[in-house]
């Protein structure tokens, strides 16, 4: 039986058009875009086209503001460390939030060991940062504010525009990790007013291992990788031609189909949230109700543990993700779920369900039927559950 993927945040299938474009470039071109001959020029054009597609997807003023990277993690590391290193003389204070992705958390942890200071803001129970708190956290030493656009565990979307107005007034660089937003929800860097914005191709059905960083012109930042003059002298190393071409096509289609996709994804999410009380009880839906990713549902199911749920659903041919510490490798409770007030036991039973463009409402119903059985069988053997 075919697997039904409700874990698009972990991996999304390549669009057929993306696959074809990548095959075509493998068959057709192999050049180094930096070369001065015709073989190199063809590769340069292919990358330039992809850059234009990405610039259009997030509405850059100039496509040169896009720097291609090896993915979201590199983009985030580049943004944070690049700004920190380039502006160290001005100050060493950085403001962030308590629910950032580990790429942000650990980049900042590394900087802390090098003498930087970090203020991490708490969020409300829906996962929102209060822009007033950003104002209060800023000091004369602050060089960077990094707040994510949408959260990868609970889906909450922040009021980035309002925060960017604050940083703009104070002339502080603002980075937003938009890895789970770009290609899913409309993103306009000029409208948002951010200086740096990270994205990844696999969020919008492009290949993994490729992403990018929007760097507003005149933003003071050092490269993360030093070497050649590639990427407008902002990221050394010969470009990942095949990956970038694939991402470019995925970006074009994401822009073209965004409205249609949004309607579809929202309908799946609404169906899930509206129907789930018919199948299970005693759970929390995490995240902000009004403003969150249209493709993500985070649910904490009481008295059971998420890895067991994932394994059992896998047997039923459904792929989902969990935020249980047991499945995290580090065996630590999710800092995001603790930050929005879940206790460790409830965090253990948290599933992250991410819909994709090929999922259907019938699949949601089938999934809920399986989930009901799985939850019941795990609660039946749980010493925490006293129910019927």
């Amino acid at each position, binding site marked *: 039986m075919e697997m039904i993927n409700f874990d698009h945040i972990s991996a999304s299938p390549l669009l057929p058009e993306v696959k074809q474009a990548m095959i075509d470039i493998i068959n057709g071109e192999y050049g180094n875009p930096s070369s001065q001959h015709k073989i190199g020029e063809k590769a340069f054009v292919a990358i330039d086209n992809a850059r234009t597609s990405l610039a259009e997807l997030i509405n850059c003023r100039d496509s040169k503001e896009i720097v291609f990277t090896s993915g979201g993690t590199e983009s985030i590391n580049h943004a944070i460390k690049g700004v920190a290193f380039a502006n160290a003389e001005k100050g060493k204070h950085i403001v962030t939030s308590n629910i950032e992705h580990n790429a942000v958390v*650990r980049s900042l*942890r*590394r900087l802390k060991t090098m003498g930087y200071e970090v203020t991490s803001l708490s969020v409300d129970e829906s996962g929102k940062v209060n822009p007033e708190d950003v104002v209060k956290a800023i000091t004369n030493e602050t060089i960077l504010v990094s707040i994510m656009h949408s959260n990868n565990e609970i889906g909450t979307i922040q009021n980035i525009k309002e925060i960017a107005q604050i940083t703009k007034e104070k002339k502080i660089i603002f980075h937003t990790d938009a890895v789970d937003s770009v290609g899913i929800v409309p993103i306009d860097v000029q409208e948002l007013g951010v200086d740096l914005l990270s994205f990844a191709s696999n969020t919008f059905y492009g290949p993994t291992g490729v992403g990018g960083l929007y760097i507003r012109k005149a933003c003071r930042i050092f490269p993360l990788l030093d070497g050649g003059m590639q990427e407008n002298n902002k990221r050394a190393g010969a470009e990942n031609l095949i990956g970038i071409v694939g991402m470019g096509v995925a970006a074009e289609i994401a822009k073209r189909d965004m409205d249609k996709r949004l309607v579809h994804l929202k309908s799946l999410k609404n169906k899930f949230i509206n129907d789930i009380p018919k199948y299970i009880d005693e759970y929390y839906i995490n995240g902000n109700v009004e403003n969150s990713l249209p493709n993500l549902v985070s649910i904490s199911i009481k*008295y*059971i*543990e998420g*890895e*067991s749920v994932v*394994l*059992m659903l896998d*047997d039923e041919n459904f792929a989902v993700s969990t935020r*249980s*510490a*047991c*499945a995290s*490798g*580090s*065996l*630590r*409770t999710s800092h995001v779920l603790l930050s929005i007030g879940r*206790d*460790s*036991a409830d965090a*253990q039973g948290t599933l992250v369900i991410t819909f994709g463009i090929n999922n259907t409402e019938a699949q949601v119903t089938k999934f809920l039927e399986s989930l009901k059985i799985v939850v019941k069988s795990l609660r*039946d*053997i*749980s*010493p*925490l559950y*006293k129910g019927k």
Partner: protein
Amino acid sequence: MYSKTVMDHFRNPRNVGTIDNANGIGEVGNPLCGDMMTLYIKVNDDNLIEDVKFQTFGCGSAIAVSSMLTELAKGKTLDEAKKITNKDVAKALEGLPKNKLHCSNLGADALQKAIKDYEEKKSGKVKTDSRNIEPPIAESHDEHKHDDQCHCSYCDSDLPDGATFCKACHSDILAKLENNA
């Protein structure tokens, strides 16, 4: 990932449930740590573990460990059962992922607690009625209070300022940094 035997015990756990007239109960772990197991044993007059049942809140390996432990313990004398270790359980399961050995492999501990409970009850030390046992209260274990003490960049741990040794992964941070340099 998990071995075939682990997946078999996870999918079809043996001896799930409670024993109404259990004469020994052992409870280990804690929901805050991710895994919790309650083990019920019925010991007969010949000191034989006649019946054993479990309830577990936890991941795949925790459930498989519980199930395998009940199979190992059932029909054993108390003296034999006392010799069962967590290592034996992991071995019978054809191994567990390294990161699960510490947290989910609690089965033998639960058994030893249940045996102790039985012996104490028998000698009149404890008089609680096992059937009225309250559900466990969530308390944090000391070994899981990582936040204020350990964490280095080699495991997943925040270190206090100036720390040179990580209590979580037992790494000498400075030595590691120097070796990597």
